C-alpha cells in the first residue's frame, strides 16, 4: 500500500502493522479469518528450548481498559516451532519475527542460533522482559549490564537482525535501551507488559494463579508513548512500538512518539480482525497528515525543527 512500506533492519514491511508476540499464537487461528499475507510482519509466540505448559489457570484477569495475563510462555518448544510452525507459516508472504525466550543465557543463545536459520524468520525479538516466568527472564530485562551481555551473545550466533524487547518495569528505560544498543542490538521493541495484580473481592486472594501478571491493553498506552518518546531521542535504533494499540489513530500516535513500526497485541483478543482494519484505515490518516510516507512522521513529537517546517 502506498506510503506504508517500511524498511527496518532485516525487515522489508509492506506496511508497519504486525501482531505482537503472545497475542497471535503462530497465526493458525487467524489464518481462518483473513489472509495473513496482508500483515506487515508476524511476531510469533515466544519460543523456548524445551516445550512449556505455562502457568496454572486462571491465567487472565480483566482490568479497567486492559487485562492481566500470566500465561507463562506456553509453547511447543524450539524443535516443533522450527519444524512445524515456521514451515506452515512459510505459505504466507509475510516476514516472521521470532520471539526468543529462556531462563539462562545458554537457552537464549541456543534458540536464537537455531530459529534464526529458518528462511522466513527475518528478525529475532529477544524477550528479556516476560514478567511471568520465575527464573531468569525479567532479570535480563532490568539490569543494563546483564541485558547488554545477553544481547552481545545472541548477536554472535543469530543469522538475522536482533530486536530487544524492553520491559517497562524499570526505573530508567533509557539506560536499558542504551545498554542493549551497546550490546549490538539492531532495533528495539517496546514495551512489554507492566507488572500488576488483581484481587478477588470475595476471597481477598489474587485472581491469577500466578498471583501477579502482565498488564496490557489501552490502559498502558500512555506509558509506552512516554517511554518511546524518551528512548527514541537517546538511541539511534529503530523502534517497533506496542502497548494498547487499538486503532489507526493509536498507530499515528506511536509514530509521533518515535516508533518506526507498530505491533498490535491485546486488541487481537477483542477483535480478531483488528490488524486488517488498522491497515485499511492507515492510508487515509497518513494522507490527512500531509505526508507521502508514514516514516516521515516518526518522532514528530520531538523533532521540533521539522514541525516548524511544516507550519511554514
Amino acid at each position: 500500500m502506498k506510503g506504508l512500506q517500511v524498511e527496518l533492519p532485516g525487515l522489508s514491511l509492506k506496511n508497519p502493522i504486525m501482531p505482537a508476540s503472545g497475542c497471535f499464537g503462530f497465526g493458525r487461528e487467524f489464518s481462518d479469518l483473513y489472509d495473513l499475507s496482508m500483515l506487515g510482519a508476524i511476531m510469533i509466540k515466544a519460543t523456548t528450548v524445551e516445550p512449556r505448559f505455562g502457568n496454572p489457570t486462571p491465567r487472565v484477569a480483566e482490568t479497567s481498559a486492559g487485562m492481566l495475563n500470566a500465561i507463562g510462555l506456553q509453547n511447543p518448544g524450539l524443535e516443533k516451532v522450527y519444524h512445524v510452525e515456521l514451515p506452515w507459516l512459510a505459505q504466507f508472504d509475510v516476514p516472521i519475527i521470532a520471539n526468543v525466550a529462556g531462563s539462562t543465557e545458554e537457552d537464549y543463545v541456543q534458540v536464537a542460533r537455531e530459529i534464526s536459520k529458518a528462511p522466513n524468520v527475518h528478525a529475532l525479538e529477544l524477550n528479556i522482559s516476560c514478567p511471568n516466568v520465575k527464573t531468569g527472564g525479567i532479570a535480563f530485562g532490568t539490569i543494563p549490564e546483564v541485558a547488554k551481555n545477553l544481547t552481545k551473545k545472541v548477536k554472535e550466533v543469530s543469522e538475522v537482525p536482533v530486536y530487544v524487547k524492553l520491559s517497562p518495569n524499570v526505573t530508567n528505560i533509557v539506560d536499558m535501551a542504551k545498554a542493549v544498543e551497546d550490546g549490538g542490538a539492531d532495533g528495539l521493541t517496546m514495551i512489554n507488559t507492566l507488572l500488576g495484580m488483581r484481587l478477588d473481592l470475595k476471597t481477598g486472594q489474587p485472581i491469577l494463579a500466578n498471583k501477579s501478571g502482565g498488564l496490557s491493553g489501552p490502559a498502558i498506552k500512555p506509558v509506552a508513548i512516554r517511554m518511546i518518546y524518551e528512548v527514541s531521542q537517546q538511541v539511534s535504533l529503530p523502534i517497533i512500538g506496542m502497548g494498547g494499540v487499538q486503532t489507526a489513530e493509536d498507530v499515528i500516535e506511536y509514530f509521533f512518539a518515535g516508533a518506526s513500526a507498530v505491533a498490535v497485541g491485546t486488541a487481537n483478543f477483542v477483535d480478531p480482525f483488528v490488524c486488517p482494519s488498522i491497515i485499511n484505515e492507515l492510508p487515509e490518516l497518513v494522507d490527512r497528515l500531509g505526508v507521502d510516507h508514514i516514516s516521515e512522521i516518526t518522532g514528530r513529537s520531538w523533532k521540533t525543527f521539522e514541525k516548524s517546517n511544516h507550519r511554514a
Partner: protein
Amino acid sequence: MIVKELCQITSQKEIAHDIFELTLKGELPNSMNEPGQFVHMKVSNGLDPLLRRPISIANIDKKASEFTVIYRKDGRGTTILSEKQPGEKVDVLGPLGHGFPVEEVNKGETALLVGGGIGVPPLYQLSKELVQKGVRVIHVLGFQTKDVVFYEEAFSKLGKTYIATVDGTAGTKGFVTDVINNEELNFDIIYSCGPTPMLRALENNYSSNHKVYLSLEERMGCGIGACFACVCHTADDPTGFSYKKVCSDGPVFKAGEVLL
C-alpha cells in the same frame, strides 16, 4: 466459519432471578451448525470492559435469523448486557468452539442431558436437535434454589424433566447425581454442561460404561484459541506438555479426554 457481526436485540427478558434470556437477530445463525457452541459478546462500545463475554447458545432459529442466549447477571459485563434494550445492537463474534456431537446417539436410543445452573442453556438447543432426530431425551437440571430455575416447561415439552435444587425449594433436594441414582434412569449417552465438580462426578460414575460428553467452563480471553488463557491438561498426560484449549478444542470434550 467465524463471523463478527452487529446483531440487533429483538428481545431481552429476566426469566428468573438475575437470569436473562436475550434474543438477537442477524446473519450469524446461518453459521451455527452444532448445539453447544458459544458466542463472544462485546458488551460495551468503549474500552471498559475491554474483553468479550463468552456465552453459550441456547436456541437457534434459522428461519427467523435469530438466536437466543441465556446468561446470569453476575459481574460488570453481564450487568451492562442486561441493561440493553430491544433495537440496540451488540457486537457478536461467533459461532465459536466445538459443540455436542449429536451423531453419537442413534434414533430410538435415550440421551440423558444433565445441566447445572448457567450450564443448562446449551442443552436446550441440543435437546431440540436430538428430539428432531428421534432420540428420546431425559433432562436432569440442577439449580441452587427455586428463584433461579428456568426453562423447566420448555424442557418438559421435549422430554421427561427432573429438577434438583441444593436447598430443596424446587424439585428434588440435592444434586443432579442424586436424581440419576434415585430415579434409576436408563440411558445410552450423557451430555452435560455445568460446574466442574458435577462434570467430574458424571465422568467418574458413568464414563466407564456410557458415552459421556462434557461442556467445560473456563475463564477466556480471545475465545478463538490464540491467547492460551483457557488451556487444560489432557487426561493421558496430566502433568506434561500436552493440552487442549477449552475455547477452540472444546468447550465440549469426551469424558476422559481432558483433566477435570
